[in-house]
């Protein structure tokens, strides 16, 4: 990879771009189809569509943004670029999954233990079973 000069593939027809574009369209439509037209469980739908999203992001980075490209003879710059983007992706995943996990797992427990006295919970997300102790049923 270190010896591959960056410009060589740029004199002919832009196959890399075209392939990246077509694959992106296929992944987009396939994700939409999986999400809206199949009867898979929510968990599987989420795994598949997020898998496709990361795949498509990788396509953009590789086919359009030339993340593996080296500006010098050594392959240092491409390693810094790839390492930086991978680290950013790691940070992003930790922030998102960490936040969701903390706020949903922790919150549900809090609701049950304290019985959330002040929040008039209009949200109907499983609210029926949580409020069947009587004191909140008055506003019906």
């Amino acid at each position, binding site marked *: 990879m270190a010896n591959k*000069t*960056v*410009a*060589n593939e*740029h*004199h002919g027809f*832009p196959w890399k*771009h075209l392939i*990246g*574009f077509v694959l*992106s*369209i296929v992944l*987009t439509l396939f*994700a*939409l189809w999986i*999400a*809206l037209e199949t009867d898979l469980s*929510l968990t599987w*739908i*989420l795994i598949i*569509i*997020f898998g*496709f*999203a990361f795949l*498509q*992001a990788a396509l*953009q*980075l590789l*086919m*359009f*943004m030339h*993340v593996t490209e080296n*500006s*010098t003879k050594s392959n240092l*710059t491409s390693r*810094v*670029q790839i390492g*930086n*983007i991978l*680290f*950013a*992706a790691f*940070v*992003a*995943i930790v*922030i*998102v999954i*960490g*936040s*969701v996990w903390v*706020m*949903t797992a922790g919150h549900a427990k809090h609701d049950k233990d304290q019985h959330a006295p002040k929040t008039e919970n*209009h*949200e109907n*997300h499983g609210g029926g079973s949580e409020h069947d102790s009587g004191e909140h049923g008055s506003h019906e």
Partner: protein
Amino acid sequence: MAHAETHDPNTPLEYRSETGRLNILGFWIFLGAEIALFATLFATYMVLSHRVADGPALGELFEVESLLIQTFLLLTSSFTCGLAVHEMRRHNVKGLITWMAITLGLGLGFLYFEIQEFLHFIHEGANIGTSAAWSGFFVLVGTHGAHVTFGIFWVTMVLIQVAKRGLTPATSAKVFITSLYWHFLDVVWIFIFTAVYLMGMVTHNG
């Protein structure tokens, strides 16, 4: 300044000056920070996306047609932006400017449909203050839209510079950096498409 650097004749213009190389590398690092920025907005959105208060649920108002139009406009603009850089590396200034102009047109089209969609949501009773979920939605998607808006001005100005000064190591590095920025906006949109729209519609219907 202009000490003779020896180059492989295949080295693209944007990598020929030290400034160009460092600016491009620096921009990759900036994109890493942008990923972290959007991650915090995604996290906020995903934590709050069920907190709809008295307003409509998110998935209730999302429409596949508008979503697909926006997605394909932005995806195609990312492709044409790649073609522009491809032409730049063949030293074809006219091709570069043509493809970049098409990219900008597609970007403007994306913004038009996004604004139409926002107005539609507001009309249906979901604005930024309606509920925590809609606040998260408008801040996340709006931040992306603001990035696209900024990108349109930035690319326009860089193109004016290219038209005036031609392709030099300096201008070509600027074009390349704006292309990275533009592709990055499409990468963010992929995740908005998935985490906001698809997830919103799936959880609403399912």
